């Protein structure tokens, strides 16, 4: 058996491989079978919408060129933003993969090495049960920081400048420049720039609380600095999460 062709072919070749596949791949797949896989549309939350609309406010020309303009009317308005935000997320993830970002930035926080203090809450399975983690973006190397809690930590302006020329903001950073995300200058992100920033701002935006989180501010109608509205929105955000 140990030196026969059949033994090698069926036991070593197929048998042991199947054994490993069942125990190491099928078991977790069945264990998480009851966690539904979320679509991109289901992933959009108020924190992310805030960032996405903030992009439109900061770079109106670029945004209009990439996504057009929102139609009037309250209901269509909301649906339109969600639709464009989903589009940006999908495209942003494609860029994140295509540019190899995931080879230098991980997307999981471990329960060891003080990572909880540095990055935020330890990663849970449910966070990865969605369309944008197909294949999963855990990553295996951190040349730069983990990004799974990055959303909202820094402003969109910071990200545009950083993508354009990382050294201007992070002294000594070995991160490459991405001028092709822009039309010549950091204040003119193109469709790619807007999408990748939306994706980065999504990472961790589902967390219920975040130390540096900017609260969701609805577009247009909100008067500046009105505390009542802010409180209402926090309630709304809490409901969304629940």
């Amino acid at each position, binding site marked *: 058996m*140990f*030196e026969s*062709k059949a033994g*090698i*072919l069926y*036991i*070593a*070749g*197929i048998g*042991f*491989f199947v*054994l*490993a*596949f069942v*125990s*190491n*791949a099928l078991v*977790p*797949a069945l*264990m*998480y079978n009851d*966690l539904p*896989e979320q679509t991109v549309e289901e992933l959009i939350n108020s924190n992310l919408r805030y960032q996405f609309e903030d992009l439109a406010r900061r770079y109106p020309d670029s945004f209009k060129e990439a996504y057009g303009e929102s139609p009037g009317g309250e209901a269509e308005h909301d649906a339109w933003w969600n639709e464009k935000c989903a589009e940006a997320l999908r495209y942003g993830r*494609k860029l994140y*993969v*295509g*540019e*190899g*970002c995931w*080879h230098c930035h991980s997307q*999981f926080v*471990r*329960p*060891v*090495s*003080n990572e909880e*203090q540095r990055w935020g809450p330890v990663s*849970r399975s449910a966070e*990865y*049960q*969605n369309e944008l*983690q*197909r*294949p*999963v973006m*855990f*990553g*295996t*190397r*951190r*040349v730069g920081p983990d990004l799974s809690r990055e959303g909202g930590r820094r402003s969109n302006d910071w990200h545009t400048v950083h993508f354009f020329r990382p*050294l201007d903001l992070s*002294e*000594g*950073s*070995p991160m*490459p*420049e991405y*001028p*092709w995300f822009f039309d010549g200058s950091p204040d003119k992100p193109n469709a790619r720039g807007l999408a990748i920033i939306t994706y980065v701002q999504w990472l961790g935006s589902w967390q219920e609380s975040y130390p540096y989180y900017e609260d969701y501010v609805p577009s247009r109608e909100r008067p500046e600095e009105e505390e009542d509205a802010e409180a209402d929105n926090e309630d709304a955000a809490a409901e969304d999460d629940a």
Partner: protein
Amino acid sequence: MSEALNEAVTTSHEEVKSSEELVDQTLVKLYFCTALTFLTVAMLAGLLMAFQLIRHNPLRGIELFSPGRWRMVHTNAIAYGFLANGFIGALHWIVPRLTLQPVFSKKLSWLIYAAWQGVVGATAVGILLGEAQGLEWGETPVWVDPFAQLGLGLLALNFMPPIARMKGPIYVTLWYFMAMFVWTFLTYAMGNFVPEYFVTGTSAGAVGGLFIHDLVGLFVTPLGWGMMYYFVPILLKKPIWSHGLSLVGFWGLAFFYPLQGIHHFLYTPIPMFLQYGAVVSTIAVELVVTTVIVNFFGTLWGSGSAVKTNLPIRWFYTGMIFYFLTCLQCAFQVTLTFQKIIHFTDWVVGHAHMVMFGVFTMWIMGMMTYLFPRLLNRGWYSLKACEWHYWLSTIGIAVMSADLFLLGLFQGWSWAALEPWDASVEISYPFWILRTIAGLSMFAGLLVFLWNLLKTWTSVPEQTAVADVSNAATA
């Protein structure tokens, strides 16, 4: 000499076809040259990334030279362009000689060659245009995957019939090759399709870990060891020391290796009991590896001076020492204690380089050093250049690995101590600079080899027997 021995070892039949009838030598040469071309591309890509890390990338800000994309070209060109082509060339040399049967179809061989270069070329173009798939070591764009899968199927179809036609027990090398044809096909299918289309999130991570691991363990490793079991007895002119240990080595690897994939994602949300399983089987395989190493050093026992005089043997045994070190390192770094510190750091990068360059590239280089004079029917143009190739490569990889292991520890401790992120980048620079120098040394070794090969190729063929590189240093 060694040809005669080879036939003596493998032949019990009356009529023996000559090696010219059995082996398509033009194809072997073509595979080797293609492999070397991709190795050159891969090393240039690696150098680009190395210069980016030390902030001296001369091509920065150019989309098509984006270091992130070239980093993926680097690994994919190594796996599918260099290692796969080098190994398939070796298969075309070894399998017909061991089985005394030609491959299933010579036309199919050429079709596979062309198709495989199409796959590798399309992968490179796809990655450079930003079409990569989000799967480590499997960044081949999704539209290339079915073709690669088909190519691997055809490869098995071409090489399995000569093995199947053999009567009686088959030699160790063929155990590894036979199993490899099945494993590689299944591994590629699992890794490229399951996490993309069937499972998501954490379970996709488990499959991705299996894929990264099996690609090395069930594709590259069995090819490499199969080659060693074939070439080492021929070069040393004696049989493998212990057949029993050969059995232990093969079956131990076959059982334990596929069970370890999840050790690439320890401390992720993948269930802990699966992580423990991966850790235990990783430590187990180190014991198996030890038996294989003992077996090969047992074979070398009494012929130790061959390491000095016989260059291919020196390449092979240097690779084995690196293999043992890598696996020993595995047994430690896989523990949760080590993982806390070294995961995500350059330690792992050092580990990957020690395996891919220190072991498998060395073995392929040793094989090429041995086979090119036979394929071209003339001795090496410069034996001194062969020596330079060896020493530049060996010193380069030793320095690079040691440098990255040490750096990995410093990075890990810096992170655990909650120093500002920039501090961990700051301490990395001197190490990254040394790594670049080590990489340049390895690349220089390759250039010397290419120059030597070109000179050899264009020199006048010898009428007498092939100058034996086995006695290189004494000449």
